[in-house]
């Protein structure tokens, strides 16, 4: 970005912000996940345009690859899951800001949850049945590990009671299900639905049973973008929340769902509109609010496991001021 500050936070008549004087480009790093819905919708519905913001999407295979790009100012905004990686990066002076929600659970329909192998669905009925089973998670010291431990705790098990398999890729988990070399996995949508359709695994209960208020993914901002370009970043956030609200309208209130699904099929790899009716969609808070306490407790776990380095200052790194100001402009979501 880059804009002088006199473009003004001057509001328009309806209380909304005026467009920027000069067209400003914002670069968003994405990994093609459904949790980027707010960006996609805001772009397609012209909310960014209305503020004279030109957004460009650039894709990364992995949210961890985005951190260096973000810190180096190569991109302005990134989305990512919570991992020890953030905290370590931030503690090492990579001044990335956590600025908004990008994924949490909808009660009873978790988009990031456990599955068990199809042929074991009758044997594994309850959490305690997982004892002695081979369970795949995608990484250590990340939200995956956190949810996994919450689940084990809930089941009254410890890691010694099960066999943990680390698989770097969710796709590989499907393959491993196919070959019968794992019994359960912490899987993500849309692969949960696809795997069910293919008869590889079945959804196993729901993650909200034990971690209802987990903060899975967040919107991250580059230090320059958040601190220096206040005009741009506030407008960006406002437009983003408009998009998120449309998303909530569609999936919670069934308003304008068709249009939203159209947008989603265009931007994500899930190209089948019918499937969008089935998948457990990502929860995105219409006000951008996060479960900050949960982030803290994740951090505590990483720290306990010795996976973090240095100290992490939540006050400095979690910056909710943008969302708050944007909500002030937009009003509470009802």
């Amino acid at each position, binding site marked *: 970005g880059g804009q002088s500050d006199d473009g003004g936070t001057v509001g328009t008549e309806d209380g909304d912000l005026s467009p920027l004087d000069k067209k400003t480009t914002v*670069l968003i*790093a994405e*990994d*093609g996940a459904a949790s980027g819905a707010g960006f996609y919708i805001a772009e397609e519905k012209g909310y960014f345009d209305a503020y004279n913001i030109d957004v460009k*999407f*650039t*894709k*990364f*295979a*992995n949210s961890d*690859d985005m951190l*260096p*790009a973000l810190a*180096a100012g*190569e*991109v302005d905004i990134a989305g990512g899951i919570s991992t020890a990686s953030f905290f370590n990066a931030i503690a090492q002076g990579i001044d990335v800001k956590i600025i908004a929600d990008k994924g949490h659970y909808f009660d009873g329909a978790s988009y990031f949850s456990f599955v068990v192998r199809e042929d074991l669905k009758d044997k594994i009925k309850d959490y305690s049945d997982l004892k002695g089973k081979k369970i795949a998670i995608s990484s250590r010291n990340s939200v995956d590990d956190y949810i996994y431990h919450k689940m084990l705790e809930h089941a009254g098990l410890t890691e010694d009671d099960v066999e943990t398999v680390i698989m770097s*890729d*969710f*796709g590989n988990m*499907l*393959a491993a299900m*196919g070959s019968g070399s794992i019994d359960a996995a912490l899987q993500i949508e*849309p*692969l949960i639905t*696809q*795997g069910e359709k*293919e*008869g*590889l695994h079945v959804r196993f209960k729901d993650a909200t049973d034990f971690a209802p208020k987990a903060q899975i993914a967040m919107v991250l901002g580059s230090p320059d973008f958040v601190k220096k370009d206040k005009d741009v970043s506030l407008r960006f956030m406002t437009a983003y929340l408009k998009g998120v609200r449309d998303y909530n309208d569609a999936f919670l209130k069934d308003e304008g769902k068709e249009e939203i699904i159209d947008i989603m099929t265009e931007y*994500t*790899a*899930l*190209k089948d509109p019918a499937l969008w009716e089935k998948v457990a969609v990502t929860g995105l808070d219409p006000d951008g609010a996060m479960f900050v306490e949960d982030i803290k407790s994740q951090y505590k776990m990483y720290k306990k496991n010795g996976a973090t380095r240095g100290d992490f200052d939540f006050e400095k790194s979690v910056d909710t001021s943008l969302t708050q100001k944007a909500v002030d402009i937009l009003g509470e979501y009802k």
Partner: protein
Amino acid sequence: MKELKHDPHAVEQEEWKKRQWKERGKQLLTIASPVFILLLWEVVSRTGIVDARFFPPPTEIVGTFVSMSASGELFHHIGISLVRIFAGFLLGVIPAIVIGLFMGLYSPIRHFFSPLIMALMPIPTLALLPIILIIFGVGEVSKIVTIAGSVFFPVVINTVAGVVNIDRIYLDVATNYGADSKNFFFKIALPGALPVMLEGIQMGQAIALLTIVAAEMMGANSGIGYLIWTSYKAFLLPEMFVGLVLISFFGYLFSLLLRGLQSKLLPWR
């Protein structure tokens, strides 16, 4: 028993034609073998010997290919990747040849560089991505550099091997006839190393394709590699296989082109 053919020229021409036919037969074999594998795959996939969910039969992949081509987007992906591959390939091959020739000719240079090459070569591209990203940004350059980086190694190694294996007598002749270093380079080292070097380039070509997925894992919005990993992440296996088959196809095509180039470049063999 003895049936005398009276024109040996005709016979030998016939023989030559037969050889040409045989050559063509072998070329046919070259075309037949991928077809054979595809057929085999179709059969084992259709009959359920392998899991069709993971290995959709080629016909299904072709179907996906057709529907993907219809939108024209696929060709956009292909075009973008080909540009990156070519650029990366050239950017890797040219310095590799130059450095390789120097290393082959001057043993102190060889001794200085070869441990570095041997130490850097096994560094996984994946671990280099953030470094490349920081230095070259998220644009095209970083993708081209990623490809160039992995192409470099096989070419440099085979160029060195090619030079070192040149028969000493040719070096002696060049020395005796007063070849200056430029001529030594271009008249002796380069052509003498060419056969083995071309094998390295053949490998480099494959590696350029191999690396396109990694290169397009950062900050890309299109390309075959992008198509592969996004499809894989979404477990859209037919789409992923379209990407993989495209990679294979280009690997096959480029290797045929290089083989053609090879016989042009080595008329003396």
